[in-house]
């Protein structure tokens, strides 16, 4: 395991302006989708980013993919800031950071043979390497990639509609792997798949990580998936990190009340005992007007007077395990 982080995210913020009118647009307010988020991913490791809809996990991953520009903060890949990358440097970045999205039905071009989809990813990301003009070499690499994701080389000649959901997700993965990336953003990669297919895909992702030493940023809402895939977990609520820990210590010792509620809402596949279930009242407040102080205080079962006044800082409670909650102020 290397000690230098591959990707560093420092004080990342993304505020979307909410406007009214077209010509003389007025700004009504800002949606703080991501608000001061920092974490690291090491080479060959998986970081799980967990939270409910609207918590900012997808916006964070889009900023890492350079599809959104942060309002504030920095993203560094191998100590190089990614903001302002242009031309060849930007292409090189895109080749190093790839993505697989949730829905394998919309992420592949239905009019393109899958071999062509994979080859295109190879050509586009080959930044300046003239050798990728050679069709035989491209074909060879496409065959290799299809085998790597558990498909047959001759399937390169088929169209996406001839594949099942799980197979399409393998094609999307092959296209992402084409440029030998250092990091792949996996945005809910298995949640659209059936249970038995999901397990195949998770095993495949782990095998590929072991072979290629690629790092994953796994955006997911299913904690059991995260437990099986991730080395570290970041839990987000309304644009903020509420808890951050190595997977093993998080699952052994959940600290933040929100994370606890999230864990207790996970329905275990088995005859359930639910004496200690925490049912959160209400819904996630609007990110347009997040609650003052701790953003979770409106739904927290352990709320104290200072929670609505003062925002808790993210502080370490045990090695590598950080929590943003006033319950741990004295810890």
């Amino acid at each position, binding site marked *: 395991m290397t000690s230098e982080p591959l990707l560093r995210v420092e004080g990342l913020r993304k505020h979307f302006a909410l406007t009214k009118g077209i010509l003389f647009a007025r700004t009504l307010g800002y949606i703080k989708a991501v608000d001061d988020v920092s974490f690291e991913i090491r080479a060959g490791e998986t970081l799980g980013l967990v939270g409910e809809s609207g918590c900012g996990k997808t916006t964070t991953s889009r900023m890492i993919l350079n599809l959104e520009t942060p309002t504030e903060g920095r993203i560094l890949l191998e100590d190089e800031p990614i903001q302002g990358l242009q031309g060849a440097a930007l292409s090189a970045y895109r080749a190093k950071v790839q993505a697989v999205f949730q829905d394998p039905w919309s992420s592949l071009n239905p009019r393109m043979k899958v071999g062509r989809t994979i080859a295109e990813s190879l050509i586009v990301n080959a930044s300046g390497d003239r050798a990728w003009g050679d069709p035989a070499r491209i074909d060879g690499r496409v065959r290799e990639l299809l085998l790597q994701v558990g498909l047959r080389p001759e399937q390169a000649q088929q169209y996406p509609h001839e594949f099942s*959901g799980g197979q399409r997700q393998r094609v999307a993965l092959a296209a992402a792997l084409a440029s030998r990336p250092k990091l792949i953003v996996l945005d809910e990669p298995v949640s659209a798949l*059936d*249970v*038995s297919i999901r397990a195949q895909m998770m095993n495949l992702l782990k095998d590929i990580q072991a072979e290629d030493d690629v790092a994953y940023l796994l955006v997911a809402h299913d904690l059991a998936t995260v437990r*099986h895939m991730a080395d570290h977990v970041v839990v987000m609520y309304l644009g903020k990190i509420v808890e951050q820990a190595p997977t093993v210590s998080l699952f052994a010792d959940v600290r933040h009340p929100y994370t606890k*509620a999230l864990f207790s809402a*996970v329905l275990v596949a*088995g*005859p359930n005992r639910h004496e200690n279930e925490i*049912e959160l009242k209400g819904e996630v407040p609007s990110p347009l007007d997040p609650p003052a102080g701790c953003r979770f205080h409106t739904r927290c079962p352990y709320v104290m007077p200072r929670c609505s006044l003062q925002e808790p800082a993210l502080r370490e409670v045990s090695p590598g395990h950080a929590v943003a909650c006033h319950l741990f102020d004295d810890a």
Partner: protein
Amino acid sequence: MIGETVLEVRDLHTHFFLRRGVVKAVDGVSFSLRRGEVLGLVGESGCGKSLTALSLMRLLPKGGARTIKGEVLLDGENILERTPAEMREIRGRRISMVLQDPQTSLNPVFSIGDQLREAIERRQRGTRAEVMKEAVAALRRVEIAAPEQRIGQYPHQMSGGMKQRVVGAIAISGEPAVLIADEPTTALDVTIQLQYLKLLKRLQAETGMAILFITHDFGVVGRMCDRVAVMYAGRIVECGPVRQIFEAPQHPYTRALIASVPKMSGPIGRLTTIEGQPPSLMDLPVGCRFASRCALVEQRCLDAYPGTVRVGEEHTADCWKVVPR
């Protein structure tokens, strides 16, 4: 309390008749549902679980789907023999349904109040004020805060969890004996999912309705169901009490399916997978439908479909290899 049988489905066959051939999506499904009970209908996409539900409601998709055989006995009366007009009286009052996506179940151009009113007026006539009072009460029953204000709102002004509550309020407004819930929480976040499941349980305790709960999520099954029926390629392959299905699954498909679910505790290793694909519903094998993917396959599995074997108290499995009890 679980009482007498309210719904009994016998040997249901619903097929799609297409130009290319016949898709046997539901092909011999039988089960029963008792008052106050939650029966889970579990399976992967394309196994026929949703089409089973639509067959019970007699709301088959246009384009060649027909129920060609079987009986659906609601309080002893075969509703497959009722006329479309009679069916409209049955739907909503005696059997009701909640679908997966609350976004598409509600009409975006009518207010919540209007949509509830429509459901209530089908059951009882009254002045506008009376019906509106009833609608507010229906929203309060599904635990929507400030129902008097919400009643004038439109679906887009509500969150997904709230919309699904409104759909629930409409579905139970006629006090049906049977509620079919087709993946009602799949589109919701986990904490909202838990709220909704608990609400359904509370409503069931109040009304004593029977719930047929369709899902692919074994976590939801464990939380909600009294009994589980596992479907594969158009048939129920195993049916039994929830505890037995989890602790001692008998059919190899059920066993493999439960083993492939990532767990929240225990060792983290490679997940068990089921290799291969389900058979095409247009070209089903004569033998066991799971045979091509089964680790225990034998010649007799390929030659003939196994009968339904009793393997325990209220527990059955369709497999040649299980031990009858």
